[in-house]
């Protein structure tokens, strides 16, 4: 359930970052709402594949972690500092970029012309394989899971939690013009980033947080 709620709580940020990738496509195609929902399912399937592959990766991190608390704190603290760095970076230095997955769009563009049926799937995979801030938080949490099955389950529930925010995507065209949402999302990412920076730094400095 933790993964689901983590997804649910950070899903608004996910939607603010990634909806601009999906929504213009859906609007551009000019399809009916039903067809848009089918397209959304393809997109979500791609995201799921991306997430599950990360579940395996996160489990790999877990197995390589030493079991004594001081060393674990050191590594988890470092992960938090890395995450906070990315959050702050996205917040202040990537203000003009709509979605962290924008780099993957070039590949998507090629696919769109050659294999249109795979386009949405690859777009979903690109957002699923991306180091967007909420996703990195999920990686850090999943790294604490004991088994591969738990890690997969965590990512599956995280996927479901974040997907809740993408379900209304076919209707999100109405919000496209509401640019403050992106700015607010980025600013909030910066604030949360600063908080994680403190947690990570104190964990690194000797685990005396709390």
């Amino acid at each position: 359930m933790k993964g689901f709620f983590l997804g649910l709580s950070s899903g608004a940020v996910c939607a603010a970052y990634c909806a601009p990738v999906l929504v213009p496509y859906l609007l551009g195609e000019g399809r009916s709402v039903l067809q848009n929902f089918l397209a959304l399912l393809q997109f979500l399937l791609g995201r799921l594949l991306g997430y599950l592959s990360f579940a395996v990766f996160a489990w790999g991190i877990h197995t390589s972690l030493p079991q004594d608390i001081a060393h674990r704190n050191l590594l988890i603290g470092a992960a938090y500092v890395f995450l906070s760095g990315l959050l702050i970076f996205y917040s202040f230095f990537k203000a003009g970029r709509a979605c962290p997955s924008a780099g993957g769009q070039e590949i998507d563009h090629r696919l769109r012309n050659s294999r249109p049926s795979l386009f949405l799937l690859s777009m979903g995979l690109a957002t699923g394989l991306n180091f967007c801030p909420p996703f990195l938080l999920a990686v850090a949490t999943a790294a604490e899971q004991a088994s591969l099955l738990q890690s997969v389950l965590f990512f599956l529930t995280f996927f479901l939690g974040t997907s809740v925010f993408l379900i209304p995507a076919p209707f999100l065209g109405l919000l496209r013009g509401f640019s403050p949402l992106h700015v607010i999302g980025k600013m909030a990412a910066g604030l949360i980033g600063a908080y994680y920076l403190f947690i990570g730094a104190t964990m690194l400095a000797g685990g005396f947080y709390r």
Partner: protein
Amino acid sequence: MKRALKIAGYTWAVACIVVVLATFVGNNYFSAKLASSTGITISPWFSGGEIVGSIDHATYKTVIHRPVFDGLIGERKEGFIQIEWQPVTALPLVIEDGIDFTGDGKEDFAFRLDTAAGRGTLTPRNPSVIAIQTLVKVNQGWVARIQLRKVS
């Protein structure tokens, strides 16, 4: 339609003045009603959770709260248990208690409180018992919070 809207608007505006008066005149009533109708309480992370048991010593007693792991939904991995010793006037210089909060008949931790020095010593007997989180003297006695971690 315009006239109806206008009447509704002005009625609403006058009602706002009534609301201001009602807010203050009926504050005690509304507060009590709000509390009773919602059944809202203070989060156990602050209140310490409900009392589930006590150990009676001759002159004082040890009060045991339930372990708190409450999350937004479900439970967290990290939590605590609150123990109290009261009344403050009847406490001996050194208190030694064995606490079984799991109810399995086995002691989960032992706690030694030196009331004169204000120092506590925790001896975990269960891997979920981690450390002393807080030890504070309050006007009724002493309160300790012991950090717990769920063992999977």
